[in-house]
């Protein structure tokens, strides 16, 4: 700072965290999960905390908010916001700061929204609490905010409940909610994990706008080095509760001090770096999907209002072969998870789904149970997918028990092995409960569970979105290894193009419930035909400095409204085949 602002002697940081420690448990059993964390945050600045999954990032953020779980203690450290120490601040005072001065976006959007309240009301509450606007103004403010996070048809969405939204939509609601008051500090815990890259780019841009306009300081927790490169001014790298390195963004990317930082950077997957593949020949088709269609009934608006449906998946067909990985990418809310859920028989659907040759529609009893051994899913929202009353050993061992694999001792060994494979070797992990883990750890628990049975097919819905790159690499290696050894087939839903490029043999691009383009990896990612695919690829952040994305003023045509009258039949899509095995939808 060459030209200090007149009148101010020393520029104080907005937030400074000094020697913060967080512990769980009492006495000898106590476990220190954050140790000696220090950093400062200035207005308009973005500080990224990157690091290993489970290294205490989320807990540190919660400590700033004064929202640590009751069982957690802060044995030492101060958190200064302006002049106030947030540690041990009165609840009343904190209530004034929260939301208004410090906003937070939570890591897991499904469980972080009140299931019994419309999202509009949940947002309105913040507006009213901090007296930002009243009456119609408040409603408008909310709609504007939802539109700012690129939620289409915000007017309709405000009346929906969280469970009716896709993962990405929920996350955007969280973001919108935290930004409503334009807080001085915005804490964002993995804010874009569930977002496709185009939206991610726009959200990041939005955050930057906020920073510019209101001097908002952003504390961003992320494992995506691309996002770090995009956003950060300063970076804190954490590993196992301790800070490995705190440095300027430039230093981190150019000459990192810590061994761990170097390791982390080395593990970052970069789009376009995967070697081109020789076309492979795969075995039998294990999964054949034809004309799959899923619609969710909407709550009727009144007694006589016509029944409406959400067209989540509309007439899609594809085939997955033995040993093959099919990636599904696409914008948030386009129906990826729904497709996966249909394959798992979790939603009612039309069309045919054949797993290992048998049609699963209407399958029951023993036949269904048998089929379950062949196909397993890793769910997008790991926390919601885990029974909170079961410990990890029980959860991961559950499929083995259900299908009577091995003796109790064998099962226990298998569970331990699985946990080690996904990078959760901690001795006490087995007896802990889901809420005692970090977001990334829970995601790995879900992966371990899906792998337990050695299924033939795994539907993986954003399986590594919450993992730091080194752990992510470990998990991806594991998946590849298993594929090699057992000829597993994966249906891999992800928005991370680099990961998709690394893992997938073929890629399908979905948009608004339909497949827009499908073909081999190289065909789709290296030679995209459909404009939507091109737009998607352009938005991928790059983990390198000085390559700020300008979120392209992309094709601004709105996505078609998925809410239709019941029984509506949209026109069919026609596909062109520019190359062998490469299909591209032609707009109609």
């Amino acid at each position, binding site marked *: 700072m060459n030209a200090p602002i007149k009148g101010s002697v020393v520029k104080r940081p907005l937030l400074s965290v000094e020697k913060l420690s967080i512990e769980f448990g009492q006495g000898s059993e106590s476990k220190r999960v954050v140790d000696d964390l220090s950093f400062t945050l200035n207005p308009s600045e973005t500080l990224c905390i990157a690091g290993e999954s489970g290294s205490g990032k989320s807990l540190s953020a*919660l400590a700033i*908010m004064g*929202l640590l779980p009751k069982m957690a203690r802060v044995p030492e450290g101060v958190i200064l916001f302006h002049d106030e120490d947030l540690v041990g601040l009165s*609840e009343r005072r904190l*209530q*004034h*700061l*929260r*939301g*208004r001065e410090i*906003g*937070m976006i*939570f890591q*897991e959007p499904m*469980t*972080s*929204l*009140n*299931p*019994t*309240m419309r999202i509009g009301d949940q947002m309105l*509450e*913040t507006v009213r*609490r*901090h007296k930002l606007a009243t009456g119609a103004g408040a409603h408008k403010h909310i709609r504007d905010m939802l539109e700012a996070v690129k939620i289409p048809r915000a007017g309709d969405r405000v009346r929906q*409940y969280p*469970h009716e939204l896709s993962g990405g939509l929920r996350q955007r609601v*969280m973001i919108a*909610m*935290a930004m409503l008051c334009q807080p001085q500090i915005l804490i964002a815990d993995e804010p874009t994990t569930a977002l496709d890259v185009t939206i991610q780019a726009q959200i990041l841009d939005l955050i930057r706008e906020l920073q510019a306009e209101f001097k908002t300081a952003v504390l961003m927790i992320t494992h995506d080095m691309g996002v770090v490169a995009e956003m950060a001014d300063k970076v804190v790298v954490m590993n196992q509760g301790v800070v490995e390195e705190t440095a300027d963004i430039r230093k981190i990317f150019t000459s990192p001090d810590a061994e761990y930082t170097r390791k982390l950077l080395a593990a970052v997957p970069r789009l376009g770096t995967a070697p081109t593949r020789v076309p492979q020949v795969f075995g039998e088709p294990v999964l054949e999907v034809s004309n799959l269609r899923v619609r969710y009934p909407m*709550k*009727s608006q009144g*007694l006589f209002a016509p029944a409406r449906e959400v067209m989540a998946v509309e007439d899609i067909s594809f085939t997955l072969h033995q040993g093959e990985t099919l990636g599904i990418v696409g914008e948030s809310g386009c129906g990826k998870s729904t497709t996966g859920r249909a394959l798992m028989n979790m939603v009612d659907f039309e069309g045919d789904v054949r797993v290992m040759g048998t049609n699963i529609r209407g399958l029951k009893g023993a036949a269904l149970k048998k089929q379950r051994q062949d196909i397993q899913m890793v769910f997008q929202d790991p*926390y919601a997918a885990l029974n909170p009353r079961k410990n990890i050993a029980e959860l991961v061992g559950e499929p083995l028990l259900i299908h009577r694999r091995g003796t109790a001792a064998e099962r226990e060994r298998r569970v331990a092995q699985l946990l080690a494979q996904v990078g959760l070797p901690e001795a006490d992990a087995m007896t802990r409960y889901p*809420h005692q883990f970090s977001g990334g750890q829970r995601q790995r628990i879900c992966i371990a569970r899906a792998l337990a049975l050695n299924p033939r097919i795994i539907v993986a819905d954003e399986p590594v979105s919450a993992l730091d790159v080194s752990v992510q690499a470990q998990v991806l290696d594991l998946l590849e290894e298993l594929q090699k050894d057992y000829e597993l087939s994966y249906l891999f839903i992800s928005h991370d193009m680099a990961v998709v490029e690394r893992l997938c043999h073929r890629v399908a691009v979905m948009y608004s419930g339909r497949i827009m383009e499908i073909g081999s990896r190289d065909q789709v990612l290296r030679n995209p035909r459909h404009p939507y695919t091109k737009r998607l690829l352009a938005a991928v952040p790059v983990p390198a400095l000085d390559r700020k994305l300008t979120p392209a003023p992309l094709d601004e045509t709105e996505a078609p409204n998925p809410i239709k009258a019941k029984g509506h039949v949209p026109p069919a899509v026609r596909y062109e085949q520019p190359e062998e095995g490469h299909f591209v939808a032609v707009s109609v």
Partner: protein
Amino acid sequence: MPIYILRRLGYAVLILLGVSFITYLLLYMIPADPARQLAGRSATAETVANIRAQLGLDLPFYQQYFHYLMNLIQGDLGRSYIQRTEVSALISSRLGPTMELMAWGIGFELLIGVSLGMLAAIKRNTAIDRFLMALSFVGVSSPHFIASMLFLYLFAVNLDWFPLGGYGEFEHVLLPALTLGLLGSGWYSRMVRSSMIEVLEQDFIRTARSKGLTRLRVLFRHVLPNAIVPVIPMIGIDIGIFIGGLVVVESVFGWPGLGQLAWQAIQRVDIPVIVGVTMISAVAIVIANLIADLLVPLVDPRIELDKS
């Protein structure tokens, strides 16, 4: 939704039919001859036989029931054996007071139960929690007669805050309703406490707090609606349990309700009145349950009404 309601109403008719049948059958089986009750102790055997014949009590069971049903369909509940008055007149003169007391009683139950339950959940494992727990057990374990009498002696006789029983003014309903409310609130407070504890641990509570909401707002807008879901069906159930306590409380407080009518009728095997009151309370219970079922998905949108 309208279809669902229609179907439930259809079931309700079946249920009422079932209730009337079983009630009638049981009364038929009870060894106590209404004709003898009517005829009194000096009656000769022929007087008794005569009365029996006139009431149709000498007919086989199915005929008696069939007659009753036919009349019922025409809205005729019959005449009381003892009072010799139309059952419908007896019931309608008492239905209003009973509903009034019931509404207030359940209102107090909810008010007391829910707020104490919330308090206990927030103060979990503290002395306050323990005290409230003991209180709820005392309430639930107190015989209505003793509790009503105690309240009456304490608040009406000694402190003179309330009138000594009676019916008519608003002040009359307060004490009996409070008694019912206090005694029954234990169920609600225990239920609310246990579901609150669960909800308080959910992540979305943390989100709500992160927005800077006051404790009260978090409690009432976020915790309560989620915690109340298991409590809603309680209201439907409560009507049934409530009627038991109502009989006693009405009689202690001189409240001219159905409870007294029912109690007298049962003691004197006044079949038309017993069946009539039973049917009325069955209607109330069935409707309350239906309403409870309809309310639940309104509070928790994840729950679907009729999913097969």
